C-alpha cells in the first residue's frame, strides 16, 4: 500500500508540472468562457431554459427513434435472411440487456452480419447501439436524470403555485426567469452545508436512514413506464413492485426518527408508521380495481387496455372505478405524507417530526424521496385510471396519417406519447399542491378514522362492485352492454365537464383577478 502511494507520488512529481501547465492553460479559457457566457445566461435565462427543455425532448425523441430504427433494421435483416431471432431481438424495446456482447455478435453473424441495410458511417455509428448494455447505460442515465430533475422542478413548481395561491410571487430572482434555478441553487447550498449528527444519536443508523428513503423511490422509477416503449424495465409485476418499494420508504422514516435521539423525531416516526401501514391497505385495494378490470399487473398492458380515447379510460369504465379513483387519490396523499396527512412532519406540532435533527444533504435526500414518490403515485394514478400515455383523442383517428416517420411524430404528439403521461402527472401533482396549500392538517385519530372507517370499507365495496361489474360484462348480454356504454358516456361526460370547467374557472379567475383581489392591493402591495 505504501509502495503504491509512493509510486503515485512519484508519478505526480513527474507528471504534475504537465498537469499544472494544462490547468494554467485551461484557467484563462474558463474565465473567458464565463465572462462571455455569464451575461448571456443572466439575461436570456428563460430562453436558455426553454431551449434546454426542447433539446432534452428532441434528444429523447431522437434516442427512441434511433433505437427503433436499429431494432427494425435488425428485424428486417433477419426476416429477409429467414432466421428466427431469440432473446433480446425478439421484440422491439429500447432497453434490453438479455444477451452478452459476444452472444449478440453470434446472432448478428447468423442473420448475415451487421444490419445489411445500413451503410457507410452510419453502420459504425449505430453499431454500439445494438448492444443491450449500451442501451441500458443510456437508459440508466436518463432514469437518474429524471430522478434528479423531477423532484427539483416539482419543488420549484410547488413554490410557484403556493406563491400564486397566497397572493405572492414565489421564487423570482435566482436564474432570472421566474427563479427557475432556485431549486438547483438550494440543492447546491444543501450539498455544501455541514452534516450535523446530534450528540447521542445512533450515528450509523442516522447516516443510513436517508438512503432507505431515497433508494426505494429511485427503484420505483425502474418499473414506471412513461410511454409504450419508454420504460426502463417492463416488469410483469410492475404494479406490486412499485407498491412494495414505496412501502420500504417507511422504514427509512422510522429509522430516522429512532436514530435521531429526539423525542419529536420519535413522534414523527410513530405517526408515520401508523399512517403508512394503515393506508397501504386502502391504497392496495384501490390499485386492485384496474387489475381486476384488465386482468394484468403489467402497467404497459393496463394502459394498452385503455386505448380508444377519453371515454375508454378506466376511471369512466364503471361508477366503482370512478369512486375508487378518488379513494386512491386520497390514500396516495396519505402515503406521500402530503397535506392534509402530513402528520409525520407536522411543523406546528412536532417541530419537523422525523426531520428535526437532519440538515444538509441528508435532509434533502428525504425531500427528494418525498417528491419522487409524489410523482410516482401520480404516475400510477395516470396509468391505472387516466389512460396513461393515451391522449383524449381516439388513436384510430390517426390511422389515416400512415406510418411515415413524420406521421409517427404527429401521432406521438396527438394520440399517445410520453408527453401526455407527463402532462397528466403534472396535473395530478398540481392538484396535490393545491390541496396542500388549501386544507388544514387533520389529527392522528381522524387520520386513522378516515382510513379504517371510511376508506377501507369504501374501497372494499368498490372492489366488490368492480368484480361484479367485470363478471357481468363477460356475459355478452345486449342490455348489459348498453348499460355499460351508457355508464361510460355519462361518467365520461361528468369528467369532460370537470375538464372544461377547470380551465374555464381558472381563466375566469385570471381575467377578474383585479376585482377579486381589490384595487387596494394593487396600489399598496409591491409586485402586484
Amino acid at each position, binding site marked *: 500500500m505504501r509502495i503504491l502511494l509512493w509510486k503515485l507520488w512519484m508519478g505526480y512529481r513527474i507528471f504534475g508540472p504537465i498537469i499544472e501547465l494544462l490547468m494554467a492553460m485551461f484557467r484563462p479559457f474558463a474565465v473567458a468562457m464565463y465572462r462571455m457566457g455569464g451575461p448571456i445566461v443572466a439575461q436570456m435565462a428563460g430562453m436558455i431554459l426553454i431551449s434546454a427543455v426542447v433539446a432534452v425532448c428532441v434528444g429523447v425523441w431522437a434516442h427512441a427513434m434511433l433505437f427503433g430504427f436499429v431494432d427494425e433494421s435488425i428485424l428486417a435483416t433477419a426476416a429477409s435472411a429467414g432466421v428466427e431471432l431469440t432473446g433480446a431481438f425478439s421484440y422491439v424495446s429500447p432497453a434490453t440487456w438479455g444477451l452478452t456482447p459476444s452472444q449478440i455478435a453470434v446472432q448478428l453473424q447468423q442473420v448475415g452480419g451487421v444490419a445489411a441495410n445500413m451503410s457507410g458511417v452510419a453502420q459504425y455509428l449505430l453499431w454500439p447501439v445494438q448492444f443491450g448494455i449500451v442501451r441500458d447505460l443510456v437508459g440508466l442515465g436518463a432514469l437518474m436524470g429524471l430522478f434528479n430533475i423531477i423532484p427539483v422542478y416539482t419543488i420549484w413548481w410547488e413554490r410557484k403555485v*403556493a406563491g400564486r*395561491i*397566497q*397572493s*405572492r410571487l414565489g421564487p423570482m430572482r435566482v436564474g432570472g426567469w421566474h427563479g427557475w434555478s432556485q431549486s438547483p441553487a438550494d440543492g447546491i447550498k444543501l450539498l455544501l452545508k455541514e452534516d450535523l449528527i446530534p450528540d447521542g444519536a445512533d450515528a450509523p443508523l442516522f447516516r443510513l436512514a436517508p438512503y432507505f428513503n431515497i433508494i426505494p423511490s429511485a427503484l420505483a422509477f425502474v418499473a414506471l413506464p412513461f410511454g409504450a416503449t419508454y420504460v426502463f424495465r417492463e416488469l410483469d409485476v410492475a404494479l406490486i413492485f412499485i407498491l412494495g418499494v414505496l412501502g420500504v420508504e417507511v422504514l427509512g422514516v422510522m429509522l430516522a426518527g429512532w436514530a435521531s435521539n429526539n*423525542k*419529536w423525531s420519535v*413522534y414523527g416516526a*410513530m*405517526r408515520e408508521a401508523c399512517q403508512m401501514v394503515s393506508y397501504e391497505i386502502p391504497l392496495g385495494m384501490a390499485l386492485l380495481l384496474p387489475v381486476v378490470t384488465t386482468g394484468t399487473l403489467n402497467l404497459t398492458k393496463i394502459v394498452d387496455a385503455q386505448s380508444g380515447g377519453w371515454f375508454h379510460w378506466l376511471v369512466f369504465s364503471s361508477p366503482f372505478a370512478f369512486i375508487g379513483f378518488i379513494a386512491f387519490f386520497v390514500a396516495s396523499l396519505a402515503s406521500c405524507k402530503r*397535506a*392534509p396527512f*402530513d*402528520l409525520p412532519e*407536522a*411543523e*406546528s*406540532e*412536532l*417541530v419537523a417530526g422525523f426531520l428535526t435533527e437532519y440538515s444538509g444533504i441528508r435532509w434533502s435526500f428525504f425531500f427528494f424521496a418525498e417528491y419522487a414518490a409524489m410523482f410516482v403515485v401520480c404516475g400510477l394514478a395516470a396509468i391505472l385510471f387516466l389512460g396513461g400515455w393515451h391522449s383524449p383523442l381516439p388513436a384510430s383517428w390517426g390511422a389515416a396519417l400512415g406510418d411515415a416517420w413524420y406521421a409517427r411524430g404527429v401521432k406521438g404528439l396527438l394520440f399517445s406519447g410520453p408527453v401526455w403521461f407527463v402532462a397528466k402527472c403534472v396535473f395530478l401533482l398540481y392538484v396535490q399542491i393545491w390541496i396542500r*396549500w*388549501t*386544507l*388544514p*392538517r*387533520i*389529527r*392522528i*385519530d*381522524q387520520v386513522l378514522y378516515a382510513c379504517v372507517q371510511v376508506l377501507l370499507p369504501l374501497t372494499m365495496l368498490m372492489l366488490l362492485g368492480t368484480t361484479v361489474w367485470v363478471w357481468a360484462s363477460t356475459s355478452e348480454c345486449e342490455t348489459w352492454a348498453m348499460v355499460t356504454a351508457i355508464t361510460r358516456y355519462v361518467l365520461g361526460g361528468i369528467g369532460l365537464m370537470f375538464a372544461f370547467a377547470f380551465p374555464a374557472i381558472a381563466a375566469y379567475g385570471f381575467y377578474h383577478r383585479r376585482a377579486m383581489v*381589490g*384595487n*387596494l*392591493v394593487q396600489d*399598496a*402591495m409591491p409586485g402586484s
Partner: protein
Amino acid sequence: MADTVFEASPDTMIDYDSSQQGDLRTEEMLINMGPQHPSTHGVLRVVLRTDGEMVLEAIPHIGYLHRCAEKIGEAVQPYQYVPYTDRMDYLAGMNNNQAFSLAIERLCGIEVPPRGETIRVAFAELNRIASHLVSLGTYGLDMGAFTPFLYCFREREMILDLFEAACGARLTYSYITPGGVHDDLPASWVERCLEFLDYFETKISDYNNLLSFNHIFVKRTSRVGVISIDDAIGYGLTGPCLRGSGIRWDLRKTAPYDGYENYDFDIPIAKPGGTDEIPEGVIVGDCWSRYWVRVLEMTESVKIIRQALGRLPNGDFIAPKMKNIKLPEDEVYVEVENPRGQLGFLVAGDKSAIPSRVKARGPSFCNLCITEKACKNVMLADVPAIIGSIDVVMGEVDR
C-alpha cells in the same frame, strides 16, 4: 354581572379517557414544547407529560422574555413610558398606549379633547382588527393551513400602512399618549381608511370560506379545549376567551371609556353549533368558539371605526402642556378592553413627575393560566390548538 346565555359544563367536554381511546398504554414521556417551538407563539415553554399521542399534563413555564417593563415605569415620566407599553403586547400597541394614557389622565384629571378621543377609538379598533388578523392567521398555521396566514397578513399590512401614515411607525406606535394622540391625522387619511374598510369587509367572508367553515378545521377545533363558564370566571379569563365561553362581558359596554358609550355595536359571544351559521358539533367554550368570537369582533370593530370616522370633530387632538406634569399623591387602576382581554394599569403618584408605582394586569398572562387545565387529557395536536385559541403574546405575559 354578565348575562350568561349558554351553559358550557364539564360533561360536554370531549372525553379522551384512555379507556375510550382504546390505545396501547405505553411509557410516559416528558417532553419540552418550546421555548423554541413553532407553535408556542414566541418563547412559551410547555412541559408535556405524554402517553403516546395523549397529553396527560401540560405545564406552562414563562419568563423567557422578562424585561422589567413595570419597574422601568417607576424611573421615567409617563410620556416617556408610553413606548414601553408598546413593547408589552406588541401586536396591539395602540390599545396598550390607550390603557396607560387613560390611567395617567384619570390620575391627573386631564380632559381629552373630543377629536383626540375619537381618533383614539378609531385607532384602537383598527389595532384590534390587526391583532385579530394575526391571531386568525397564526391559528390557521397552528392547524397546518398556511394560506390564510398570508391573506391575513396582507390585510394587516394595509392597516399598518394606515398607522404608518398617521404616526410613522408600523409596530411600536406610541401614538396614543396621555392627553390625546401625539399627532393629527394626515390629509386624506380618513378616505384611505374608509376605502380599506370597504375592502376589508368583503375579505372576512374569504377567511370564513377558507378557514372558519372548513370541515377539517371545524373538526380539529370544535369540542377541543372546552372551558366552562365557572372555569372561565374562576381563572379570571377576559376578552375573547371569556366571551368564547358564552359570557357577555366587554368593558367597552360595561365600563365605557373614551366615549365608547356613544357608539352602536354588539358584543359577539359564542353560541352552540346549529344556531345561526355556526357549524354542527361546535359547543360553547371550545377552541372554535373562541376563534369565531374574534372573527365576529372584527366586523363590530369595522362598524365602530365607521361611526368614529363619520363623527370626527374638528379641534385639538391633544390636551395642552402634557410634559413634566406633576402626578398627585394618589393611585388609580384603569382597565381597557385589549384585543386579548382586559388590560389594566395601576399608577401611583407622589407629587413628582415620575410615578412611584406602575403595575400592569395583562390579559395574556391571566388567560395563559387556563392552559394547564384545558390541556389535560388531550391529544398532542390539540395542544397547539388550545394555546393558539387562547392567543397569548409572550411579550405581555413576561413583560
